[in-house]
């Protein structure tokens, strides 16, 4: 029995109007931490950025100089020190470097992928190869070329080995992934007919995966071309990248740089068109 003085009487009417703001999301410590971190980083950036600008920096002159150089490069491209022949030769050299590394890489990667797909290989081997390849991929191609140039000296050899090295790691991953996606039924069916493993690989795996292999390998070819140009400059591997490096840093000839940039751009467009055609012809089959 509750005594009358202890009894609680409810107010007959609740106060009108919203008493709580309804949150859209629960408060999340991670979100708060992220916001604070971003704020701190923004503040640090804002106060350090002005100190990075050197005293002799003049904004107006810098902008006019920049536009002037861009104008020379893209509006007045012409050759002076190099001939068209050597330039096209250089482009060809870069293309061949990309082609060779992609070719060697894709062959090696195919066998490594077979050894690292869950469809065929034991888990220990899969994890071993995949994590090793992840380590190789984590280090950029240019760095691999420089590492190999310690052994082979700066030049084409180091470039071929270095780019191939990274291509193998990249293609192994994507090939093995597409093998993992293949439905086990196709393989099981051929097993049920008593086929041996090499036959199953050639009769089921390759027909199903050919389209995705082609497009992945082509993407790698595009990457390798870009790398070949960059490495031509960085590791003296020759090709159009080296010529680009010479005419920009050595001769300061921006007219010539413009020609080379246009040439590389044209080739990149051609590659893009080919890969588009390749992809659309593959999807048309499905």
């Amino acid at each position, binding site marked *: 029995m509750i005594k009358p003085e202890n009894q609680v009487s409810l107010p007959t009417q609740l106060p009108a109007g919203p008493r709580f703001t309804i949150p859209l999301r629960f408060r999340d410590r991670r979100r708060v931490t992220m916001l604070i971190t971003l704020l701190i980083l923004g503040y640090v950036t804002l106060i350090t950025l002005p100190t990075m600008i050197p005293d002799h920096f003049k904004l107006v002159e810098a902008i006019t100089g920049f536009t002037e150089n861009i104008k020379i490069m893209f509006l007045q491209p012409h050759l002076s020190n190099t001939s068209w022949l050597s330039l096209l030769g250089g482009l060809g050299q870069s293309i061949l470097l990309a082609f060779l590394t992609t070719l060697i890489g894709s062959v090696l990667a195919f066998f490594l992928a077979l050894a690292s797909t869950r469809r065929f290989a034991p888990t220990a081997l899969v994890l071993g190869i995949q994590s090793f390849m992840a380590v190789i991929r984590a280090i950029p191609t240019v760095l691999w070329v420089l590492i190999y140039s310690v052994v082979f000296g700066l030049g084409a050899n180091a470039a071929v080995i270095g780019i191939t090295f990274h291509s193998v790691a990249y293609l192994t991953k994507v090939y093995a992934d597409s093998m993992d996606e293949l439905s086990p*039924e*196709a393989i*099981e*069916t*051929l*097993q*049920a*007919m*008593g*086929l*041996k493993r*090499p*036959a*199953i*690989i*050639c*009769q*089921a795996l390759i*027909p*199903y995966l*050919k389209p995705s292999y082609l497009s992945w390998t082509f993407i790698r070819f595009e990457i390798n071309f870009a790398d070949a140009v960059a490495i031509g400059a960085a590791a003296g591997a020759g090709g159009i990248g080296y010529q680009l490096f010479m005419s920009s840093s050595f001769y300061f000839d921006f007219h010539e740089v413009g020609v080379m940039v246009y040439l590389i751009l044209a080739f990149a467009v051609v590659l893009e068109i080919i890969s588009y055609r390749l992809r659309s012809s593959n999807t048309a*089959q*499905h």
Partner: protein
Amino acid sequence: MLTVKHLAKSYNGTKKSLTDVSFSVSPGEVTVIIGPSGAGKTTILRSINQLIRDDDGEILFDDVDMRQLNRRQLRDARSHIGMIFQNYNLIEPLTALENVLHGCLGTKSNLAGMFSLYRNSEKTEALQLLQKVGLGDFAYQQCRNLSGGQKQRVGIARALMQHPKIILCDEPIASLDPKSTTVVMDLLRDLATNDGISVLINLHQVDIARTYADHVIGINNGQVVFDDRTAALTDTAVTDIYRKTTSSERSLVYEG
């Protein structure tokens, strides 16, 4: 021809999928296994060619126990057992002819398997088989462009290319329309009657079992509950096969 004795299979140690299944298949007969979903029909079929390794029992195929074979012997035995699947399981990017030719790769060398080296006689046979299943004009079509019924007929031609003594069919008509169903079932019936091949079929459709089977095996809850000529498959027998297991019976089965 094929005798299964005391086949038992459990998937995770405790839950039994099959408990003591015994039956036999005679040459030149169509044997149909019917039973509710999850009764273990597919498990039985896949145990026969050891796609599923069973736990216990004997599977005598031509007086040889499939369970005792080593890898090489098993491959050899499998190359003479045709198999037909619900989803056809063709290699879709390849042509019908190439798929049929896969049937003879089980007995050929690695090199032949890798580089598709077939004799002219084998190619002729494959073309004849495609004609037999009524797909002579589709030999050079990619399989992904064929209809379901056509794919299943390519599957049958592929099985025949193996010169099989027995063909195992796992729900061969479950994804087909009525017209294709008739074509496929007529074909299988014809193989048993005229070519003397044993045909073992998993089915859901009782009426089709009645029309085409010589011999019916009813499976319920991992056990054989009916094993007789088709004429003995009365309506009460069908009801019995598709009867739901009561919970007490099920627990008995699981524990036993």
